[in-house]
């Protein structure tokens, strides 16, 4: 036997925010349950909030907002493409998240989260609605606190051991295959339930500076959650809505806008003018940025110089002290200062698929269930739109409790495949004589994604990307050569990125309209179409053909009749550049070249030494 065997009740793929809380809740609900967490890194620091986080971007706290207000905000920013039940649950359980985090960190109200004079958690305005739903957080240590609780509950944690295959038996979850990136040991985990909490497709488009790991999202998140779910038969939705957040340019650092805007900052163009009505990361705002750049008023900046010195100092403390702390160093080395209006240049993020800040992911209901029995999903890979970190905790909690319940009445079926053979296939890149490096192939597919998928979307370009997907999958993937298990996981990562590229292109070509501002601005259909106003595009693997199928599905009927549109219009583009010069026609037959081909054939003659003048 070349692998370890573990029997489990619940396996969690990814020990980030959603994954750690899912483990805690599963173990708390049933201390005897065998819960396993797999992660590419150590759960103390892995995932999107490894170095800390500075806010819960959406909460419904007493005195400020209600769960219905959360539904209203999300109905608007998703332009109606929303399961309102999920949004309601997000708001309803957000207060519990706050209490849980205070419990895990051992910190009091007013310390981890701010409180007002009435003792309520003090929320601020951020979303394009009239309710304060942004809650600041001094969350430098929450990931360590979550990990500590997970380990104290005797969850089996396999650090540096990502999943590479997920198995079903008779359509139900039955097992996971993983390997340790340092030791190369393989693990087969027999389980009736899997909770996928593997994050966004952080490595998708290529950052403009070309640095593969210079992504906005955590670069360990490469779409395995999306791809494993897809191959298991799960449905995925909203893959045509691309995330392209407005970030600190080049640094690609998050949180800048969301930390600054609730404290009085705002975005301006190169003329110093405020260019849009709000700073929330919805597609209308990104469309406005695109317009500024297209009409020659870029770069755009985040303006802070009008704020009181105390506020600027406070922003520096938060922005340089949590989440991506290298920010301060980045500014220092460029001589940038928040006290100058044009110091923080902003840029559009490389395109990404994510639900936390956008909408894409595995389709789940309010119980975090997918359509595959035994498979749950939560966090940035589960399509609860604009759920942010709050949603990772809310639906991670639900998934943990639900999965452990499910496992009591369902046992994992026997494995329908030859594991030894699969392991051999996975290890092939280690044994090849020579070949392409994983970085070369990753660079190639990600640069093609950026070139052909970045909105505004072009139909011929997206079709061309599908050609590249097929070519790289068939010709380049099998040629990757690696020399370590650290690099072997990259083959799985690249496979996932390719799968996600195909899903994103096909979903985009299927939705015959534009929606979500720049997120799905399709030049062939440059307006919203009312026929699509309550429809999802669902991507799934056809179980009979093995091919990727696309279908239209009606969004669950809305309980609340809130506004379903953001206040923007798609532009009417007139790029008339005149008719150009037309020279007299040439003949379409050229005797000179015809004769040459006839005389010389296709062999290129050697003429480097004219007349033999270099003879010795």
């Amino acid at each position, binding site marked *: 036997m070349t692998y370890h065997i573990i029997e489990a009740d619940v396996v969690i793929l990814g020990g980030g925010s959603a994954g750690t809380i899912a483990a805690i809740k599963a173990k708390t609900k049933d201390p005897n349950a065998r819960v396993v967490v797999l992660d*590419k890194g*150590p759960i103390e620091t892995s995932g999107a909030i490894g*170095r800390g986080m500075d806010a819960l971007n959406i909460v419904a706290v007493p005195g400020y907002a209600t769960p219905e207000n959360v539904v209203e905000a999300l109905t608007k920013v998703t332009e109606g493409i929303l399961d309102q039940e999920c949004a309601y649950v997000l708001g309803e359980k957000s207060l519990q998240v706050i209490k849980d985090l205070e419990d895990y960190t051992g910190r009091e109200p007013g310390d981890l989260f701010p409180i007002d004079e009435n003792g309520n958690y003090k929320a601020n305005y951020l979303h394009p609605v009239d309710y304060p739903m942004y809650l600041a957080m001094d969350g430098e240590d929450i990931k360590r606190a979550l990990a500590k609780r997970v380990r104290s509950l005797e969850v089996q944690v396999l650090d540096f051991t990502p999943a590479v295959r997920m198995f079903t038996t008779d359509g139900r979850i039955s097992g996971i295959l993983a390997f340790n990136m340092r030791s190369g040991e393989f693990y087969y985990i027999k389980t009736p339930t899997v909770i996928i909490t593997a994050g966004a497709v952080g490595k998708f488009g290529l950052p403009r500076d070309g*640095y593969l*790991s210079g992504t906005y999202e955590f*670069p360990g998140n490469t779409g395995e959650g999306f791809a494993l779910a897809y191959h298991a038969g799960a449905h995925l939705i909203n893959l045509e809505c691309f995330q392209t957040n407005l970030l600190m340019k080049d640094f*690609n650092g998050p949180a800048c806008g969301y930390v600054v805007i609730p404290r009085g900052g705002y975005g301006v163009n190169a003329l110093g003018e405020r260019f849009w009505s709000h700073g929330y990361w919805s597609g209308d705002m990104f469309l406005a940025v695109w317009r500024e750049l297209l009409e020659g008023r870029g770069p755009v900046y985040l303006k802070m110089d009008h704020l009181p010195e105390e506020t600027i100092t406070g922003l520096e403390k938060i922005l340089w002290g949590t989440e991506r702390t290298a920010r301060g160093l*980045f500014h220092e080395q460029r001589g940038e200062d928040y006290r100058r209006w044009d110091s923080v240049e902003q840029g559009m993020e490389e395109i990404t698929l994510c639900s936390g800040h956008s909408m894409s992911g595995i389709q789940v209901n309010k119980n975090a269930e997918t359509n595959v029995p035994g498979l749950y999903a939560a966090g940035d890979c589960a399509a609860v739109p604009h759920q942010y970190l709050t949603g990772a905790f809310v639906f991670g909690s639900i998934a943990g409790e639900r999965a452990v319940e499910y496992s009591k009445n369902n046992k994992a079926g026997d494995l329908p495949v030859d594991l030894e053979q699969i392991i051999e296939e996975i290890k092939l890149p280690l044994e090849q004589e020579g070949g392409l490096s994983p970085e070369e192939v990753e660079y190639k597919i990600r640069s093609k994604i950026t070139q052909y998928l970045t909105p505004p979307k072009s139909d011929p370009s997206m079709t061309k990307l599908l050609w590249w997907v097929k070519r790289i999958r068939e010709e380049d993937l099998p040629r990757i050569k690696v020399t370590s298990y650290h*690099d072997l996981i990259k083959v799985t990562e690249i496979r996932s990125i390719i799968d996600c590229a195909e899903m994103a292109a096909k979903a985009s070509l299927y939705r015959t309209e534009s929606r979500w501002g720049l997120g799905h601005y399709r030049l062939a259909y440059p307006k919203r179409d009312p026929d699509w106003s309550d429809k999802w595009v669902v991507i799934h693997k056809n179980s009979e053909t093995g091919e990727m199928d696309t279908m239209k599905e009606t969004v669950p009927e809305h309980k609340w009749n809130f506004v379903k549109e953001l206040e923007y219009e798609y532009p009417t583009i007139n790029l008339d550049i005149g008719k150009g010069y037309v020279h007299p026609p040439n003949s379409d037959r050229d005797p000179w070249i015809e004769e040459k081909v006839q005389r010389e054939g296709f062999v290129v003659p050697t003429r480097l030494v004219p007349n033999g003048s270099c003879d010795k």
Partner: protein
Amino acid sequence: MSIHNSKAYQWLDINKNTCISCGLCVDYCPRDVLHKDEDGIPFMKHRDDCWYCDVCAFICPKKAIKLKEVPYPIK
């Protein structure tokens, strides 16, 4: 491409005099970038997987490690 020797350019500054080779930075790097060299001193074995998240500096009990600069392509 990953680099596999400790002498190539790295954007982490590691003070060999104060480093106690405890390995915390190696164990807690979320991208498995750091490994120990033959003297027990950490180096960026998989440099180009670095997200410059600063966890290594944060976790070091002796403050022996710090980001010298952000990665060259984005500096």
